[in-house]
């Protein structure tokens, strides 16, 4: 095993109505090749053997794409390092003797389920409000090449579409705003011809749902862009604002 010794200060909260508190855990034998989550696995293994309650945290793919992992580490969403999720954070970013704070996403719209796991169902509901193209399954659609799409537009749409819905933007924002998440979907579809017919309705419906969920307003601090593991640009928020403005002004 490895040779790092660390002190973890972990948020423990037994359900949404519990007050919660920080609990200290020493962890020994940490190797720099471990991912952060593997380090927590080692700790949990130890807790189970001792008969203690292991720390609950969300994770699944462990390769930075499913968006399930969601830790606030030393005051940063997904910890130190840019363009990565917690599962892609490796212990070589830390030093022997370090103290590390581990907390859940904190947002009124993401209630804690247990310890570090939160409920991000609000994102699904924003998506259900309008984050789609209304096209049914059909084997008789036009050919995929019938409408050429300029490469730049396709690339920009892709950049927006890489959002993994993890919620780092919300956790990072001082206002707890979900603008970057919402903007990424609106922007992706507004950049593609397939998304145009419903553009206005989409922008209005998704923003309305976002507000209803209790997310805060965007005040352009730009923190979300910095912590976003997929590097989703603030430009998409600007595009959402334009789409929303046009939709509001021209609404019947």
């Amino acid at each position, binding site marked *: *095993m490895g040779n790092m010794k660390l002190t973890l200060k972990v948020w423990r909260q037994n359900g949404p109505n519990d007050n919660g508190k920080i609990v200290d855990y020493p962890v020994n034998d940490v*190797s*720099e090749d*471990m*991912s952060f989550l*593997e380090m927590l*696995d*080692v700790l949990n*293994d130890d807790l189970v*053997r001792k*008969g*203690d*309650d*292991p720390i609950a945290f*969300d*994770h*699944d*793919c*462990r*390769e930075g*794409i*499913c*968006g*399930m992992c969601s830790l606030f580490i030393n005051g940063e969403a997904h910890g130190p390092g840019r363009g990565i999720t917690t599962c*892609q954070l490796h212990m*070589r970013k830390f030093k022997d003797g370090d103290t590390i704070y581990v907390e859940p996403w904190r947002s009124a719209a993401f209630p804690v*389920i*247990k310890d570090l*796991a939160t*409920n*991000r*169902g609000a994102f*699904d509901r924003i*998506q*259900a*409000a*309008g*984050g*789609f*193209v209304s096209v*049914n*399954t*059909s*084997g008789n*659609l036009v050919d*995929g*090449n019938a409408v*050429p*799409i300029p*490469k730049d537009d*396709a690339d920009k*749409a*892709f950049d927006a*579409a*890489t959002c993994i819905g993890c919620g780092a933007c919300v956790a990072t924002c001082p206002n707890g705003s979900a603008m970057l998440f919402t903007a990424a979907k609106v922007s*992706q*579809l507004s950049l*593609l011809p*397939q*998304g145009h017919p419903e553009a206005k309705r989409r922008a209005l419906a998704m923003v309305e749902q976002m507000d209803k969920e209790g997310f805060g307003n965007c005040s352009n601090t730009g923190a979300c862009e910095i912590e976003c593991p997929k590097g989703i640009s603030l430009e998409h928020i600007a595009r959402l604002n334009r789409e929303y403005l046009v939709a509001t002004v021209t609404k019947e």
Partner: protein
Amino acid sequence: MSVKLDSKIPPGPIDKKWTDHKGHIRIVNPANKRRIDVIVVGTGLAGGAAAASLAEQGYSVKAFCFQDSARRAHSIAAQGGINAAKNYMNDGDSTYRLFYDTVKGGDYRAREANVYRLAEVSANIIDQCVAQGVPFARDYGGLLDNRSFGGVQVSRTFYARGQTGQQLLLGAYSALMRQVGKGSVQMFDRHEMLDVVIVDGKARGIIARNLITGEIERHGAHAVLLCTGGYGNVFFLSTNAMGSNVTAAWKAHKRGAYFGNPCYTQIHPTCIPVSGTHQSKLTLMSESLRNDGRIWVPAKLEDAKAIREGKKKGSDIAEADRDYYLERRYPAFGNLVPRDVASRAAKERCDAGFGVNKTGEAVYLDFSAAIERYGKLEANVKKLENVTKEKITELGRAVVSEKYGNLFDMYENIVGENPYDHAMKIYPAVHYTMGGLWVDYNLQTTVPGLFALGEANFSDHGANRLGASALMQGLADGYFVIPYTVGDYLADDIRTGPIDTKRPEFDAAEKEQKDRINHFLNNKGTKPVDDFHRRLGKVMWDKCGMARNAEGLKEAITEIRQIREEFYRDVRVPGSGNAFNQELEKAGRVADFLELGELMCVDALNRNESCGGHFREEYQEMDGPQKGEAKRDDDNYAYVAAWEWTGDAGKANLHKEALTFEEVKLTQRSYK
């Protein structure tokens, strides 16, 4: 006793079967669809597409996933691409050629009619996804771009950088959420299916656990669709997500659904090697990298040894002292041989002592030639003169970065080494399972009303899946097959009315699950679940992995039975059943893997031949140009092994579905 397996392949010529079948099977009228409930378990490409499409048609759908959102199903992690016979490249592709490549790639162990249908609907999938706003890669003319994948000689793979699975899944997810918004789909996330409930011989619902509250719930339906993915996590270490599991499929098996070809496992050749005992999963480096990366090991044992000891680096080895073993052994396909072939070749070199990392289990995947080639092309395009070597490298890196940037970043994060400067080190890892629940042409299992789609069924990939075909199959099953075939079954249910979940069958199934949960929680054991899972995985990898033999498989069966016995006696599951309890979730999944693993070994032991991902050391070519290649036995093993549960994984009953090949001639699969 052997029930004859009826594959229900429609009559007629292969290219007319699906059209004729669709035209003749029964359908349910729109008013009646509203009175019919369908449960879809799993929300990956197959499940997400099926749930959305069936809801669009008017069925009342309940969708389940264990993740916190339908968008996180493991299809999201597929990287390289999706095949479709569009022939946009004018390189001779066709429905027939995609069909042929897939049957051959599967080493002639797939059902022809299913594969032909898959090839036939492949083009529709691309059109559907484009219409949903999936941002596929495009060229400067604004048209869809393609690349090549292993085992084929055309470019038919559509992609969205290295995140194709993500983009396709988000497309299916958006269609699903549209139906959720309309109220046509009821979504149950953070729910795990624990059992299927059979009433009068038909699947009529499921027992599920709400993973947040721990509540055991009953859900009734007229049909149940399992879209629950593969079982690669039986090996503990695999490229699957941590939560990927076999529980839904295994419980269905124990309720009467036959399990098809469980031993067919895909070991993917290009994954990041194991770094230590803490390892929780392995990360894939997309097969698309083999378009441009060249795979090699040192030609001299002393060089390999020096590299392992840290005395030399890969870049110190002169061109003449490198062994590009895939190009050497398979000149026609080179680095783009199918996955099973590439994996075995890597194992062969490493076993012979040529591995290039500390553990001796790694080979190089090198992009330096591609960087130089692309750099020169870019210099020409940009009309640069007198370009330096450094400039060419810079230009070339930019091209490689645009194509594979996210993969290179992933690699650097995990390994801590920049793959632009140093050749990647890779090794095979468990990736996909071709085996799964046996289904007929309609995707129905041997239990009426219980269907299996995508990786959860056995049907389309034979003994080896070609790259970029899993996404194709998931979406084909979900968008274009099940919406037709489920209607034929449900046509009998228009007058059934809602399924009563107070029936004794639901009582009994619920009690069984509660008893099992209580056993785990009350067990006075000492070891965490992962302990047993890791041990099971090691047995599977060593004895039922890339190479198998009769003796090892027999040992594995004994060892798995021991681990299973110990697991029930000594596992410790803390906490309560009425709360969020991740250790309890794992315990249930590992309990099922401990039975499945044994069946996989039984199946591998039964199949006295080598085919695709199933390589039995006793059955290989001993001499001639094909020396060391897999040796099939078509006379005795051209069948699907469909196993029936009898109460003990080791005593499953074997049923055989003979595979008949009318279109494709059975030959030795050669990529030389």
